[in-house]
C-alpha cells in the first residue's frame, strides 16, 4: 500500500541557493506528495513545531534539509519529549549533498526533485513502528578467574548481576599468584589479588567453579547455554546465561624448539615466569644442582618480535625482567644481573624502575645471544654486543628467557561456537580497536585482559571494570523495551541456505532445526532465526538472502527499489546519471564533510543512503541500471574498518565483483559499477571517486536497458 507523505523543505535561514518555487510546484504534482511546505529553520523551535504538526496531520513526512546526522537527533529529541518514538520520517540532504556542492542550475533542481521523489517513494512503503519487549536473566558467565575475571565478577555483582566464574585450574588468581612484585606499584601479585578474591568468595551473587572446561556455547545474548565438563565428573554441565565474558589470560611461550638457548635440555635455562615462581616461593638456586646463584643473564624478546614465533612485541617482558632483576638484587645484592636486549620498552613510570635498576648495577647489553651451552656443571653463553660491536662470553648460573606471551589454549575452539573473531596472533579480536576494545564481533560476548593481547595488571583491571559497564548496557538491566530497527525473517521464505548465519558481521542469525511435519524428503532441516533485538541493522543478510526471506524493517527490497526508481526519474537519453549508494557510517560522514568544505562535484549524481554498504545486493545495482543509472558507485568505510563488525563492506565488495562479472557476461562495460572506500578526514576521496564515476557515465553513455534509452549504449560485444 503506497501512502502519501508530507514534504517539508528547509531553506537553512534563506541561505540555500535552490529554486524553491520550482521545487514546490513540481513536488506538488507528485502523486505521493500529500502536501508540500517550505520553512526557513526546521531545526529551530518553530520549525520543530511544524515537523510535529505535519507528522500529526499526515502520518509520514519527508524532510529535505541539512544532513540528517545533525537534524535527526534534534527532531528525535523534540518528538520524544512529546512521547513520539520512531516517527515515520525520511530525511533528504539538500544542503551538504546539494546546495553546498552544486551551482544553482536546472540540473541541481532536477537532482533535488529526484532525491525527494526517491524519499517519498521509500516513505510511502514504510511500516508503522511497534514496540517489542524482552526480559533477559541478570546472569553473566565469566571464563577464567585470573585478575581480569575476578575483577569483572566483583564489578558485575555490584551492578546487580549473578555471575558464574569458571576456572580451568584448581585455584583462582591466574599468573598473578606467582608474581613477587608488580611495577610500578611495588606490590606482589598475591597482595593485588587478595581483596578481590575475598570479595568474590564472600559474594552470594558469584558462583566460583574450579576445574571447569568450557566445551561449547549455544544460543545468543540473553539466552546463551554454556556447556562444560568439570573435573571428576562424567556428565556435562550447562549454565544458562545472558552474556559471556572471556578472561582466559595468556600462556607463556616455552622455547624448547629454539636450539640456541637450550631450554628444556639445560635445567639452568628457565623462563621469566619460572623465575617469578621460584622467587615467590622463596627459592633461589640453580635447578641443575641446587647451587647458589651469583650471576644471571636475562634474555629479552625470546620468541617475540620474531617472524618465526610471534611477530609482535609482548609488551610486558621488559618490565617483568626488570621487576625480577630488582627482586634478585633485593634477595642478594651481590648477584650480577645482565639483561640482553634489543630495545628496552617500559612505558610511563615504569621508566623509573628501569632507571633504578641501572643505578643498582643491572648490566644492560644491547645485542643478541648467539648460543648457550653446558660444559661440566657450568652453563656458558656467547653474545654479540651491538654497541661495542664485539662478542662476549659469560658463564651464568641462571639463564632467564623473557619468553613471548601467547594466547591461551582454546581460543580458536571456543570461537567456533561463540562466534567471536580471532586476531592474526591468536588472541580474541576486539570489535573495533580504537573505541570498542572489550567487545567482540559477537553480540553479548566480551573479552578482557590478556586474552585480547598482553596487558599490564592495571590495564586488565580497567578492562574488567569497563566490561562490567558494557555488559550492563547490553543487557539494559534485564529488560529491553524498544521499537526495534533491524532484520525480520519470513520463515516460510527461508530456504535454509545459512548464508545469513555465515556472513552476519555480528553473528546474529542462528540456524534452528525444524520439527517434523512435512514430507521428510522435501523438508528443510534447518532454517534461520533472527532476533531483531540483537540485530545491528546492517542489511548484509538481506543482500545475501537468495529468497528474499530477510529484510530490514525500515529498508525492504521494495523500498530501496522504489527509492532508486524515484531518484532516477530524470535519468535518460541525454542525461547520464551516476547513482551512489553510500553507507551511513564513514561514507555519509565523508560526503557531509565534503559538503561542509563546499567541494564541488557534478549535479548529475544521485545519492542514496544505506545503513551499511553490505546492504546493497547485485540485484539492487542491476535495478539501478534498469531504472536509468549510467554508472553506479558504492561508497563505504575503509577496508577492515567497516562499522558492522568489520566485514559488511567486504560483502559489498563481493556484490560489486559479482555485478561486474554479470555485466561483462552480457556484454556491458564492467566499469559501470565500482566500489570506493573512504573516511571523513580525507573528503577528497569522495569527490574524486564520484567525479570518476560521472566521467565514466559520460564516456559510456546511458544504460542499455532503460525504457527511454534502449539502443543508445556504446558497449560492443567483441
Amino acid at each position, binding site marked *: 500500500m503506497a501512502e502519501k507523505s508530507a514534504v517539508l523543505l528547509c531553506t537553512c535561514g534563506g541561505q540555500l541557493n535552490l529554486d524553491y518555487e520550482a521545487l514546490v510546484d513540481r513536488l506538488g504534482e507528485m502523486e505521493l506528495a500529500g502536501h508540500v511546505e517550505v520553512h526557513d529553520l526546521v531545526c529551530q523551535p518553530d520549525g520543530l513545531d511544524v515537523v510535529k504538526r505535519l507528522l500529526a496531520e499526515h502520518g509520514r513526512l519527508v524532510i529535505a534539509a541539512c544532513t540528517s546526522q545533525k537534524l535527526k537527533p534534534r527532531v528525535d529529541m523534540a518528538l520524544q519529549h512529546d512521547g513520539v518514538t520512531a516517527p515515520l520520517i525520511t530525511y533528504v540532504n539538500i544542503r551538504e549533498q546539494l546546495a553546498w556542492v552544486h551551482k544553482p542550475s536546472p540540473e541541481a533542481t532536477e537532482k533535488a526533485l529526484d532525491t525527494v521523489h526517491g524519499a517519498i517513494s521509500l516513505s510511502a512503503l514504510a511500516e508503522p513502528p511497534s514496540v517489542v519487549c524482552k526480559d533477559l536473566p541478570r546472569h553473566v558467565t565469566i571464563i577464567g578467574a585470573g585478575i581480569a575475571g575476578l575483577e569483572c565478577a566483583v564489578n558485575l555483582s555490584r551492578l546487580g548481576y549473578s555471575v558464574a566464574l569458571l576456572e580451568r585450574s584448581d585455584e583462582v588468581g591466574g599468573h598473578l599468584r606467582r608474581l613477587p612484585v608488580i611495577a610500578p606499584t611495588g606490590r606482589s601479585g598475591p597482595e593485588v589479588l587478595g581483596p578481590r578474591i575475598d570479595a568474590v568468595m564472600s559474594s552470594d551473587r558469584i558462583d566460583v567453579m574450579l576445574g571447569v572446561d568450557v566445551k561449547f556455547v549455544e544460543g545468543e545474548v540473553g539466552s546463551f547455554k554454556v556447556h562444560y565438563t568439570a573435573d571428576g565428573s562424567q556428565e556435562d554441565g550447562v549454565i544458562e546465561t545472558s552474556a559471556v565474558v572471556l578472561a582466559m589470560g595468556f600462556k607463556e611461550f616455552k622455547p624448547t624448539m629454539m636450539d640456541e638457548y637450550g631450554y628444556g635440555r639445560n635445567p639452568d635455562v628457565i623462563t621469566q615466569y619460572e623465575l617469578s615462581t621460584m622467587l615467590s616461593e622463596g627459592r633461589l638456586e640453580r635447578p641443575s644442582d641446587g647451587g647458589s646463584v651469583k650471576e644471571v643473564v636475562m634474555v629479552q624478546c625470546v620468541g617475540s618480535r620474531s617472524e618465526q614465533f610471534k611477530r609482535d612485541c609482548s609488551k610486558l617482558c621488559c618490565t617483568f625482567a626488570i621487576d625480577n632483576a630488582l627482586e634478585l638484587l633485593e634477595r642478594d645484592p651481590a648477584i650480577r644481573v645482565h639483561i640482553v636486549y634489543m630495545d628496552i620498552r617500559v612505558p610511563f613510570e615504569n621508566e623509573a624502575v628501569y632507571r633504578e635498576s641501572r643505578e643498582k648495577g643491572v648490566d644492560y647489553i644491547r645485542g643478541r645471544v648467539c648460543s648457550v651451552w653446558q660444559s661440566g656443571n657450568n652453563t656458558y653463553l656467547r653474545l654479540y654486543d651491538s654497541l661495542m660491536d664485539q662478542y662476549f662470553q659469560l658463564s651464568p648460573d641462571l639463564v632467564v628467557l623473557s619468553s613471548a606471551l601467547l594466547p591461551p589454549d582454546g581460543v580458536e575452539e571456543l570461537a567456533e561456537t561463540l562466534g567471536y573473531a580471532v586476531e592474526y596472533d591468536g588472541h580474541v579480536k576486539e570489535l573495533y580497536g580504537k*573505541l570498542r576494545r572489550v567487545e567482540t564481533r559477537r553480540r553479548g560476548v566480551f573479552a578482557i585482559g590478556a586474552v585480547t593481547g598482553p596487558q599490564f595488571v592495571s590495564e586488565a583491571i580497567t578492562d574488567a571494570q569497563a566490561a562490567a559497564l558494557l555488559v550492563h548496557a547490553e543487557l539494559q538491566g534485564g529488560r529491553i523495551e524498544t521499537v526495534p530497527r533491524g532484520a525480520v525473517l519470513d520463515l516460510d521464505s527461508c530456504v535454509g541456505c545459512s548464508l545469513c548465519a555465515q556472513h552476519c558481521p555480528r553473528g546474529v542469525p542462528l540456524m534452528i532445526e525444524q520439527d517434523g511435519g512435512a514430507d521428510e524428503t522435501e523438508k528443510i532441516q534447518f532454517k534461520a532465526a533472527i532476533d531483531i533485538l540483537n540485530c*545491528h541493522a546492517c542489511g548484509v543478510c538481506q543482500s545475501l538472502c537468495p529468497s528474499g526471506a530477510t529484510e530490514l524493517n525500515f529498508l525492504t527490497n521494495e523500498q530501496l527499489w522504489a527509492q532508486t526508481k524515484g531518484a532516477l526519474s530524470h535519468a535518460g537519453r541525454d542525461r547520464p546519471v551516476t547513482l551512489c549508494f553510500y553507507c551511513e557510517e564513514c561514507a555519509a560522514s565523508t560526503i557531509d564533510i565534503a559538503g561542509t568544505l563546499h567541494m564541488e562535484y557534478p549535479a548529475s549524481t544521485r545519492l542514496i543512503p544505506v545503513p551499511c554498504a553490505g546492504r546493497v545486493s547485485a540485484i539492487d545495482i542491476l535495478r539501478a541500471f534498469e531504472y536509468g543509472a549510467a554508472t553506479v558507485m558504492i561508497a563505504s568505510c575503509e577496508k577492515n574498518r567497516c562499522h558492522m563488525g568489520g566485514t559488511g563492506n567486504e560483502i559489498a565488495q563481493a556484490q560489486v565483483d559479482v555485478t561486474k562479472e554479470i555485466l561483462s557476461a552480457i556484454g556491458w562495460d564492467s566499469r559501470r559499477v565500482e566500489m570506493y572506500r573512504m573516511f571523513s*578526514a580525507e573528503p577528497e576521496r569522495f569527490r574524486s571517486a564520484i567525479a570518476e564515476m560521472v566521467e565514466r557515465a559520460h564516456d559510456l553513455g546511458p544504460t542499455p536497458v532503460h525504457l527511454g534509452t534502449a539502443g543508445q549504449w556504446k558497449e560492443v560485444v567483441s
Partner: protein
Amino acid sequence: MVGPVLIVGAGVAGMTAAVELADAGVHTVLVERLSTVGGNALRLYKAFPTDDCFFCFEGNRWRPGIRKCFYRSALTDQPNIDLRVNTTVVDISGTPGSFTVRLRTEPTYVDPKKCILCGLCTTRSEAFKLSSPQCQPQTVSVDPTLLDDEARRVASECPTHAIDLDATPSEDTLVVSDIVIATGYHEFKPQGVQEYGYGEHPNIITQLELAEMLDPTGPSGGVLLRPSDGAPVERVMMVQCVGSRSVDHFPFCSKICCVFALKHANIIAQEHNGIRVDVVYMDIRTYDRHERYYRMARRAGVGFIRGRVSRVVPRDDGRLDVVIYDSLLDQYLQYEVDLFVLSSALEPSEGTAALISQLGLQDRSGFVAPVEDGSVDGVMAGDHVFVCGTALGPAEVPESVTQARAVVSRILQGGV
C-alpha cells in the same frame, strides 16, 4: 543517589564518560576549557591503531552504531548531557558525594543550539569562521579581535539570532555527586631545550604540528612544505624522547610518541614520493601489535639512527644541519634536513594541578595518581573522584576510552 556528575575535560575520555553516563540515565555536566570538544584528537588526522581518522567517537543508544564522527556526535542534542564549552572550574567545596562546584564560562558569542552553519556570517566577515568541519558543537566561532562594523551588521542579520557580541562571562554553581577528571595532556613545547632549537627556527616543529601539516584538509592540502619558505620538503628527521626520559624535564616515558612518530614516518615514506625520513631514537617502543608500525617503517625505508642529537644549526639555504652522535657506530654524523620534527613529551594539561590541589589528590609525575589502597585500581583518584584518559598519564585512544568506561562502571556501582 548518583548524579549529577561533573566531567572536567571533553576530549576522548571525557566525551566517552559523558555519553556512557547519559546512556545509563545519569545527568552529566561536561565542562570544556576550549570552545570545541575533542581535545588533542581534533588536531590529528589519522589515528593508531586503526589508521583511519581521529574524528571517531563512540556511538550510543541514541546514536546507534559502533562509532560516529565528532560532527555527528550531537553532544548538544542529547538527553542527560549538559555541555559547557569555554568553561573552567573556579573552585570546588563540599564533601564527597555532594561537591559544590563553581564554574566560569567565557562568552562564545554564538549559541550552538541556534547556529545552523548557514554561512551568512562566515562569507561576509573574517571575524567569524568554522574552526573545523568536525568541530563540536557544530557552530561558528568568533575572533573578538576582528570585530568591526561589518561584523556587527552581519551578526544582526543572523537568521536564527544566534550571535550575541555583547555576551559577558558568567558564573554558575552546581552540586554534583561525583567528579571525573579528564583534563588530558598537553604536548610539551621544548622551548629553551638548547640542542633542539625549537622556537628558534620555523622548520623545527613538533609531531602534533606535523600531524596538522599532513592533514589533507589543512592549509597546505597535506603537501609537506618548509614553514620557512614554502619550499618542498625532501628530507625529514624525527627525534624521539624530547623532554621524556630526561632527568631535566620529565623522567617518564611518554609511551605513545614512538608509534605516533612512526605513523607519521610511514605516511610520509609511503604517500609522499621521494621524501626521506630518518628517526633518531634511544629505544623504539612499539608495544604489542604496534610493532607493525616499526616493521612497516623498516620496510618503507625509514632510516633509524640510535643515538642523540647534539646540535641543530640553520643554514642559509633554509635547511638545517643536524649533528648526531650514533651510539651504534660510536661516531658523530651530520645530516642536512628540511624539517626537524620533535617527538615531544606529554605533559599534564593546564588546570590539572589546580584540580589536584583543590580536591586534595595525589599526583604522579604531575598527572593525577590513582588512590594507593593496594587494589591497583587505575581510575579512582579519591572518594567520589575519578580520573581517566591522559589526565592519568600518557594513554592511547583505546585506553582512554576503556578507562572512561571503567569510571562510569564504578560510578554506577555507587562510587566504590
